[in-house]
C-alpha cells in the first residue's frame, strides 16, 4: 500500500526523528550516487537545498509549527522558471539561461520552505513522449534503466520513482505528466486548465499547458495539488482550485459512483494494458461503484487536432528565441537576420524544429482554414462530447498509455507512431479537463501499467477520491531500489 511520504516525513521532522538537513543530505547523496544511471536531474542545487533545510531545522528547534510541505525535498521540471537557477527546457538554445523571476508555483512552494534539490530532465521544450529529445540525453526508467522514463516530464518521474525526490512538479500539454508517471509506476495529476498558474512555465502550447504534481501516492498528489492550485493575478487564464481542499474528501466512500468507460479509449491498446484496465474496473465494482460503458466517437480526431493546435501555438511561442535577449547566440553571421536563423537552426533540436514547421504551416495563409480553423472547431466538438459523457458518469476510466515504457532509443523511428503513444492522454488537454494517472499493474517484464481517471472541469476532488480508493484496495505500487529508502 502506497502511503503518503510527505505525511510520514513531516511526522519524522516534527518528532525530530530526523533533522531536515540530514534528510536533505540523504537525498543529495542519493542524487550523487544514482543520477548517473537515471539521468533524472540536469541541474542539482545542493547548496540552496541545505540552506532551506537549515531554516526549517531552526524553526523546529524553536518549537514553531511547520507546514506539511515545509522541509520536504522536491524537484521541478526544467521548464519551470526559478530565479537565479538555470532553467534550460533541456534545449541548447537555453543551455545557460538563468531566469530573473520565479514561476508562481515555485514562489508558492519556496514560501513554504520546500527544499528544491534541483531541476529535472525533460524532452526539449516538452516536445516528446520519451524524454529522449532532451539536449542532455533522456532520463531512465527506475524500474529498468534500459527503458525510457517517458516524457516529456521524464526527469521528474524518474527522480520521484527512483526516490531522488519526494515529489516533483511537471507540466502536461498532451500527457507529459501522466505518461511518464504511468511508465514509472507512480501517480501524476494533470489539473483542470486554469487550476494552477502557468506564470513562469516556459510555454509549449499555451491553451494546453498545465503544471501538476508527480508523486508516489495519491495522497501526496492531493497534498501538493492543494498547495499549488491558487488563483494567480499574473495569469489571465488562472482560476485556482474551486471548492474545498481535495484532501478533505480524498478518502470518502465511492459507493454508487458512476465510472465510465469509453470504448474508443481501448482501441489499439495492448492486451496487457487492456487486461489491467478490466481488472481495475472489477476493483471499482467491488468497492460499490457502477461501471458505465459509452461511446466517445469524437476521440478519433483528438490526436491530429492536438498536434495541429499545439504546434500552431508552439510555432508562435518559440519565435522569441532569437539570441538577442537570452540563451544561445550563433557567433558568426552576416547580419541580424542571419544571426537569428543560425541561432535557431543550431539551438533547436530536430523534433522542436519539426513542430515549429508544422505549426507555421497550419497557420500560414492558404492552410489556416483547412487545418487550424477546422481543428479549433473539432476541439469544440470534443469539449461538448466530454460534457455529454459527464451526464452519464462521474469519472472516466481509461488507460494512460496504450503500452508500457519502450526501450531506450526505440521511440524516435516513425513520427506518427511516436505521436500515437499520446492518444489516450491528449483528449484531456484538448478539453481542459483534469486527469490523474495511477499505477494499475505490471506487464510480463515487470514494467508498470498506468490507468487514467478523468474528471469534469475542476473535478479534481472526485478523481483523486476515486484514485485513492483504488490505490488503497488494489495495492499496486512497488518501490524501486534507487535512491533514498525510508
Amino acid at each position: 500500500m502506497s502511503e503518503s511520504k510527505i505525511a510520514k516525513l513531516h511526522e519524522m521532522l516534527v518528532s525530530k526523528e530526523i533533522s531536515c538537513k540530514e534528510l536533505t543530505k540523504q537525498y543529495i547523496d542519493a542524487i550523487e550516487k544514482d543520477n548517473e544511471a537515471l539521468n533524472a536531474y540536469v541541474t542539482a542545487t545542493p547548496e540552496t537545498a541545505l540552506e532551506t533545510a537549515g531554516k526549517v531545522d531552526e524553526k523546529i528547534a524553536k518549537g514553531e509549527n511547520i507546514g506539511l510541505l515545509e522541509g520536504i525535498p522536491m524537484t521541478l521540471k526544467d521548464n519551470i522558471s526559478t530565479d537565479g537557477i538555470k532553467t534550460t527546457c533541456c534545449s541548447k538554445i537555453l543551455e545557460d539561461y538563468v531566469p530573473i523571476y520565479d514561476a508562481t508555483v515555485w514562489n508558492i512552494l519556496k514560501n513554504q520552505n520546500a527544499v528544491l534539490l534541483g531541476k529535472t530532465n525533460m524532452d526539449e521544450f516538452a516536445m516528446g513522449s520519451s524524454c529522449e529529445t532532451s539536449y542532455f540525453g533522456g532520463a531512465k526508467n527506475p524500474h529498468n534503466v534500459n527503458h525510457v522514463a517517458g516524457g516529456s516530464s521524464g526527469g521528474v518521474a524518474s527522480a520521484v520513482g527512483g526516490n531522488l525526490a519526494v515529489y516533483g512538479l511537471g507540466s502536461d500539454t498532451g500527457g507529459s505528466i501522466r505518461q511518464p508517471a504511468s511508465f514509472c509506476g507512480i501517480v501524476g495529476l494533470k489539473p483542470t486548465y486554469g487550476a494552477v498558474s502557468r506564470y513562469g512555465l516556459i510555454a509549449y502550447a499555451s491553451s494546453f499547458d498545465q503544471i501538476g504534481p508527480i508523486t508516489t501516492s495519491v495522497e501526496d498528489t492531493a497534498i501538493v495539488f492543494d498547495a499549488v492550485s491558487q488563483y494567480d493575478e499574473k495569469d489571465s487564464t488562472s482560476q485556482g482550485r474551486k471548492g474545498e481542499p481535495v484532501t478533505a474528501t480524498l478518502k470518502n466512500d465511492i459507493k454508487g459512483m458512476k465510472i465510465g468507460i469509453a470504448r474508443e479509449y481501448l482501441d489499439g491498446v495492448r492486451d496487457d494494458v487492456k487486461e489491467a484496465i478490466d481488472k481495475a474496473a472489477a476493483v471499482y465494482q467491488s468497492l460499490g461503484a457502477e461501471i458505465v460503458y459509452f461511446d466517445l466517437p469524437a476521440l478519433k480526431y483528438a490526436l491530429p487536432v492536438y498536434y495541429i493546435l499545439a504546434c500552431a501555438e508552439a510555432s508562435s511561442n518559440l519565435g522569441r528565441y532569437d539570441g538577442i535577449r537570452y540563451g544561445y547566440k550563433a557567433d558568426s553571421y552576416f547580419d541580424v537576420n542571419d544571426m537569428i536563423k543560425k541561432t535557431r537552426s543550431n539551438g533547436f533540436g530536430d523534433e522542436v524544429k519539426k513542430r515549429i514547421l508544422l505549426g507555421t504551416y497550419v497557420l500560414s495563409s492558404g492552410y489556416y482554414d483547412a487545418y487550424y480553423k477546422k481543428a479549433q472547431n473539432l476541439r469544440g466538438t470534443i469539449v461538448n462530447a466530454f460534457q455529454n459523457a459527464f451526464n452519464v458518469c462521474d469519472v472516466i476510466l481509461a488507460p494512460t498509455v496504450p503500452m508500457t515504457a519502450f526501450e531506450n532509443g526505440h521511440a524516435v523511428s516513425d513520427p506518427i507512431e511516436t505521436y500515437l503513444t499520446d492518444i489516450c492522454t491528449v483528449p484531456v488537454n484538448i478539453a481542459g479537463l483534469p486527469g490523474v494517472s495511477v499505477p494499475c499493474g505490471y506487464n510480463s517484464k515487470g514494467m508498470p501499467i498506468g490507468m487514467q481517471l478523468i474528471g469534469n472541469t475542476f473535478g479534481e476532488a472526485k478523481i483523486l477520491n476515486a484514485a485513492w480508493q483504488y490505490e488503497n484496495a488494489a495495492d499496486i505500487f512497488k518501490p524501486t531500489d534507487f535512491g533514498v529508502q525510508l
Partner: protein
Amino acid sequence: MKYEMVAGFETHVELATNTKIFCSCTTQFGGEPNTHCCPVCIGLPGTLPKLNKKVVEYAIKAGLATNCEIAEISKMDRKNYCYPDLPKAYQISQFDMPLCEHGYVELSNGRKIRLTRIHIEEDAGKLVHSRGNTLVDYNRGGVPLIEIVSEPDIRTIDEAREYVEKLQLIMRYIGVSDCKMQEGSMRCDVNISVRPVGSETLGTRTEIKNMNSINFIAKAMEYEFNRQVDLIESGEKVVQETLRYDDVTNTTSSMRGKEDANDYRYFRDPDLVTINVPRERVEEIKATLPELPAAKLKRYVEELGLPEADAQLLTKYRRIAEYYEEAIQGTKNPKTAANFIIGQIFRHVENEAEKEAFNINVSAENLNALIKLIDSGKIRMNLAKSTLDKMLETGKKPSELLSESDMAGLDENTLNDLCRQAVKSNPNAVNDYKNGKEKAIKSLVGFVMKNSRGKADALTAESKIKELIK
C-alpha cells in the same frame, strides 16, 4: 489626363496610460535605455500578458469620439513576425474582432472620412544602428497603441492634413493621447494610389510607412502622387510595395527585400481571455466624454457669436477652450475674453507644446474678474489691456494692480471738465479741426484719455468735444 489621389491612413496613436498594455512598467517617454522593462515586456520565457483596463477604456473613448460602433465581444490576436524590436516575435494585436468599427471623421468641406476600425495593440521597442551594430532598447516595447484605420476616402493633400489634425485634436481632447508626432506618439502609414478623375476603380496602391510629421506626410504624398502619375503616363505600372519616405531627399524608396514576404499567421492569443463590453459600460464611458471640438466650434460661432477663425483658435486645445469657458462665466460679452486670449495671452504661448499645456500666469478666474470690471463700467478697455499685460507679468489679481480710484470709474462732471480743459489748452488743434482737419479731434480726445488715466470712454469724449467746439 487629369488624375486624382486616393489615400487611406493607418494611424498609430500611443495611449496616455500610466503603464504598458500588458505589464505594470511605466510608459514615460525617454528614460535610459531598457530601464522601463520587466520580464513580461522583454518577453522572457514563461511570462504572461495581463491586459490594462485603461487601454480598453481609452480605445472605446477614441471609438465613441470618432462615431464608431463599439464591439460587444472582442479578443486579442497574435501577429507573428520576427524582428529584433519585437521581443516575443509576435505583436499582440487585434485581427478580426477589433474593439471599434465603422466610424468617421468629418472634414470642414463636409466630406466624411470613414474609419474602418480602431484596434488596440502593443508598440515595439526601438532599434538604433550605430557603427554597423544594432542596439535594442525595449522601453517603448509594450506601450499601448490604438491603430485607427481609415477607408481610402482622402482625395487631396489638404484633406490629408486636416484629417490628421482632426484626429490629433480629438484624441487630445478626450485625453487618450498627447499625439506628439515628434516623440512618435502619433505615427502614420499612408496607402496611396492614383486614378483618372471620374474613374471609379482603384489603382494599384503603395504604402508609405511610419511618418511622424504632418509636413512630411504632405510632402511624401505629393511626391508619391507625382511618381505614380509619371509611371502611368509613361506606360509603366505601379508596383504594390511598402515605401519609406526620406525627408532629406524628399523621395520614397522601397523597404523590403523579397525574402521577407510577410505572412502574419494571425491567431487568437491563448494567454488572454475574451473582452466583453456590456452596453451599460459603453454608456458610462460615453458620459465621461467632454464636448468634442467640432461641437464646441459650432457652439462658439452660433451661440457665443465668435468669428469662426477665433472659435477655431480657441477650440484647438482642450485646455484653452476650458480656460475660455471659465473666463466668460457670468460676463456680458464673450468676444472680450476671446480677444484677450487670442490677442494678448497667445503672445506668451509660442509653440504647440506650450499651447497644449497652457500654463500661463493669469488664471481663468483672474481674467474673469478683469472682464467683470469692464462689464460694470468700472474700467475701460485701454486700462484693461494694460492691466492684463501686468497680470501676465506678475500673476497678480486685477484688484491688486488697480487702485481704488482706477476702479472708481469716471463720473459725468469730471468728464465734462476734462473736455473743457482739452479745448482750452489746445487752441491749435481746435483751429485745425474747425478748418476741416478731421484728424485733429484725435489729439483732443487723447488729452482727455491721458488726463483721465484711461478711464474715459473715447467715443463719449469725442462727441462731447465736438459739441463744445461747434
